[in-house]
């Protein structure tokens, strides 16, 4: 995987790969794969994502409590200057200390964990495994070394087989701030196994789920779920938000079109969210860059999205699109915009929302292919 906040790709060679009207793919006019090396795309404030999904990775973090700005997912962000932080005892009916949990993509044997504690105080801690829902077993108790010791290794009980690791600690007597800066699980490769660490822009979903404490139901606990922003294989281009601008990055390209009629631009996207970019925001609009005064400086929202319907079962009984799936966004290029041209220069522009009146704050879905055709295609 190759990441960079600003990547300007030179426009190389001919504008696009023209597939034309072949017998086996009759409707596609042209296709561009913007993440591939040498793709005829000039991008700014964008990055290229590629890689395979790791076998074992963190899919969720949650905690007994947290202070705003110190959410539990910060223990896996690879940044020791951020932390999960609490103060005082956990909310009732939780009776012992505060805790943070990380959930893995599948159960595995975990030999050890590494913890970088917040502050210099020593922590009386317990580490739990959770082989199945709501039943936790202590696999280690101890006291931290104290001081600024960096990542402190904690050896777990032999053959600890679990999907969830919880680290709990006793509340400080003076209710002083406590917490964890970083948490690693032995056997989970860093940083790929920690999407938040691998990519600071990885999406965070705030799923609220019911938690049971000793068979007593808590209202809800917020789950923070880092997403894999790239597909399992291949390369894609992602438009990034900019701290120095209202809107995000962009990618310019020229693509062949069929003159004199309506054309469609379809983006093949990998969406790491469980919702539509149209409602969520941080989406992509298509802008026209050339042509006469009636044809240029126009912008288009997707006329519709084709969403691969893989549903994820929610703990609350509902279903939702699986975070991490293929989505096809179809943009209608009106005939008057195309005119008599055989090629048109377009821009993929990252924007905050469909009204373009909120800043782009997270990356767009990753674009794996751009096609033009006289009808919206899923290929």
């Amino acid at each position: 995987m190759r990441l960079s906040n600003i990547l300007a790709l030179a426009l190389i060679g001919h504008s696009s790969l023209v597939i034309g009207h072949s017998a086996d793919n009759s409707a596609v006019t042209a296709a561009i794969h913007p993440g591939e090396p040498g793709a005829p795309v000039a991008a700014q404030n964008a990055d290229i994502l590629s890689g395979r999904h790791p076998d074992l990775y963190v899919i969720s973090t949650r905690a007994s409590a947290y202070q705003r700005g110190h959410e539990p997912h910060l223990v896996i962000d690879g940044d020791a200057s951020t932390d999960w932080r609490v103060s005082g005892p956990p909310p009732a009916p939780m009776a012992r200390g505060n805790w943070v949990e990380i959930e893995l993509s599948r159960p595995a044997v975990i030999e050890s964990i590494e913890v970088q504690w917040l502050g210099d105080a020593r922590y009386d801690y317990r580490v739990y495994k959770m082989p199945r829902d709501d039943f936790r077993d202590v696999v280690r108790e101890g006291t931290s070394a104290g001081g600024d010791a960096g990542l402190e290794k904690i050896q777990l009980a032999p053959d600890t087989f679990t999907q969830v690791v919880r680290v709990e600690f006793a509340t400080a007597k003076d209710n002083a701030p406590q917490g964890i800066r970083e948490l690693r699980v032995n056997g989970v490769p860093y940083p790929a196994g920690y999407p938040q660490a691998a990519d600071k822009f990885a999406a965070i979903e705030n799923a609220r789920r019911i938690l049971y404490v000793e068979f007593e139901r808590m209202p809800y606990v917020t789950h923070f779920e880092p997403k894999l922003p790239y597909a399992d294989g291949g390369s894609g281009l992602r438009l990034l938000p900019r701290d120095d601008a209202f809107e995000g990055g962009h990618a310019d390209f020229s693509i062949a079109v069929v003159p004199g009629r309506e054309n469609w631009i379809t983006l093949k996207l990998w969406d790491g969210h469980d919702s539509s970019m149209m409602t969520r925001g941080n989406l992509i609009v298509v802008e026209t860059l050339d042509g006469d005064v009636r044809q240029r400086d126009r912008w288009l929202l997707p006329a519709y999205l084709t969403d691969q319907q893989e549903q994820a079962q929610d703990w609350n009984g509902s279903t939702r699109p699986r975070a991490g799936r293929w989505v096809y966004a179809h943009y209608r290029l009106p005939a008057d915009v195309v005119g008599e041209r055989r090629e048109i220069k377009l821009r993929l522009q990252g924007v905050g929302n469909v009204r373009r009146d909120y800043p782009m704050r997270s990356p767009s879905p990753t674009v794996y292919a751009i096609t033009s055709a006289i009808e919206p295609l899923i290929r």
Partner: protein
Amino acid sequence: MPSILRVLSAAALLLFPSISRAATLTSVTLGNENSEQAAGIVAVTAPIEQKPDIALGEPGRRLVPASENSPASLAFDAKVDPAAQNYLTIRIWGSDTTWTPVNLLLDQGSINLGNLWWHVTREPPVPGRFLYRTFPIPIEVTRGKTSLRLRLETAVAPQTIGAFRNADQPPPKLLYRPSFALYGLHVHTDSWFEPPASDRQGPPFVWGPPAPKPAGYPDIAGQRLLERARVDIDRALKYNVANSRYDTGHRHDTRVLETLPLIYHSEWSGHFQDRALAEKIRDAIDVHVRRQAAQGGDPGTMFYRGWGSHGRIAHAFSQMGEVFDKFGWLDQPFELKTAAGTKILSRRQVYGDFFHAAFEWRRLDRRSWTNQPIYVSHTLYSLQKALRALRDSRALTQAQSVGYVYEALGIRPLHSRPGAIDAAAAGYPYRLITRAGLTREKGYVDAYGELTYTLVRLVEDTADPQVRAIAEKFLHTRSVFRVPTNDTAGNAALRGIGAMSWRNTTFPFRIAYSGIEEASILDGDPVALRLAQLEIAHGRLNLLTPEPERGPHWSPDNSIRLYQQYLKVKDLPATGHRLPAEPGQPDFVWSDPENGVFVFRHGENLVYGSFFNLDAFSGHAVGDRGIYQLIRPESERLVEFPPEFALPESGLSITVKYPFGERTRPQTPPPPGMKVWAKEPPDWLDHRAGRAYFYHLQTGPYVIAMNTTETGTYRESTWTLPAIPGVTRARDLATGEIVDLSKPLAIPAYTTRVFVRE
């Protein structure tokens, strides 16, 4: 992109009536028995009035209703041209003090042809000189006729005309009230009325002396301004600022709150870095935060209208964030009572929730008339600045939050209205400040267009170069609308232009400079400095009362800031810059095609005009009323005219029913891909639907041609000024070029040309 040459033809264009030039058809000297008899004058409670110190001692007739429920009137016979546009001009004494609506009616019945005085007039508009008011008689009632019986009649007016009224106060009662006196009536067929030589005129305008300094105040800065600042500091400190309420009183609450940090940080205030003052600010913010939480966390329930109050609270906090941090107040526990129970959080967290919620609420409605988005954007910016001061993770960056300011200043397109978003997506963005530097509304606007004071505060708060550039451009444009005047005491001043404002039209507009605050913030800007130095030279600061007025717009920071700003600018070297309307300046032409506004100077004639104004089409279709004000040393004229215009056929139109008949007017073609202009309830519609592509006007010696189409847009096109028979030599006032107007003349996109016949 090459322009498209469009030649006027019946097939492609819509043309409206050509003005034929002819002499005056009817002239009545009121108070002159022979003249009145010839015109068949019948006066109902409109007695002759003649006083030696009024109207140069000439007689006139004043419309004086016998009661508040019955009108006064003056009927007369008028010869008209059956084929041309006819105009009625009335002669009025500019020092008159009663200005109420006067309708023109057909005497045989009650058909109302229009109101001759729809302006709000708070002071004598042309002191010591005559004003000629010209009104187009609807062509529907003159067509095919050679004479008409007309009647001028007082119309009902609000009892408190011109007085400030809060929106939550009941509307004023409408009554018949006395109008101005009339000294002459003239019917003619050129919108330009040249007064007959027999009309005596007052002495030509000259600037009066500066307002004198108050006795015992040799140094305004050290005495009067400081005294005023101290009065307001005292008021602000005594004000019960720990108060949060919905009614309009919240404006004072939050303005005072916003001022307290200024006092805290001013070394001369007597309360510099006073901890007790910081506590007062903290406690006041706490009160607002607690109330919002108690009201379900809904910012929309907090303040009436709510464009600025959260922003002022945020601004107060931003100025004190480091102080709060220093005292450790932000991380103190904060007990918050909500509908869901009592929570104990940190002050940092509850403040963050308060500002964030206010931002998320307010950003959803940012309004669309320029002044309103500017106020709202300032609030949004301040809220984000406060969140950054709190180091709240939800805060937008500086560059992101200034994006809302960019939208309000036209740097980014307006995206607060679906119709504007549609237009932007179609390649025709709607920007709230025009390229020429005026606000974008339905047309020119006076008071709500005077926004330099708030723009420079945005410059101050954002320190953003693009914001500054727009503020400078805006100020430079506004300086074109500054004309020499005298106040009611006869002291020299500058006045803004209001007569052609499409809303809240004030004529004359108020004394206006936009100088001292602007010059103190826009360091080195020669226009701002000239305005400031004129304001000082005219002695306007001498007129400030020891105690600042505490009206509905009172904000104590104004007097505090004025003192500081005056100290900053008072000793700056004199600038060589001169305003275009100052005496002795050369001819010029200025225009804003996007607003249909033209301004020019030709010798001693100064003209401020607009091709569209408040009319029944309300910007939804090409309107039927243009207006210009001619300022001359010896008299002024206020002229309404039906604009001649041209535009491509769109197939879209709007019909309006008048008392004298229906008028159907076209809409311009919508942007590419849009079949109609987007409309939003209750009555918002992109007013560019009603802005013709091409306007022209022949009035007296002048020919004005304006191509409103913007370069780089779907409208970009060249239009042709039709040939004017016999006008073989006309001089372009801007360039001096001599042009033969007896032949058609191409006018390129986004171009205004003003010619004077030679």
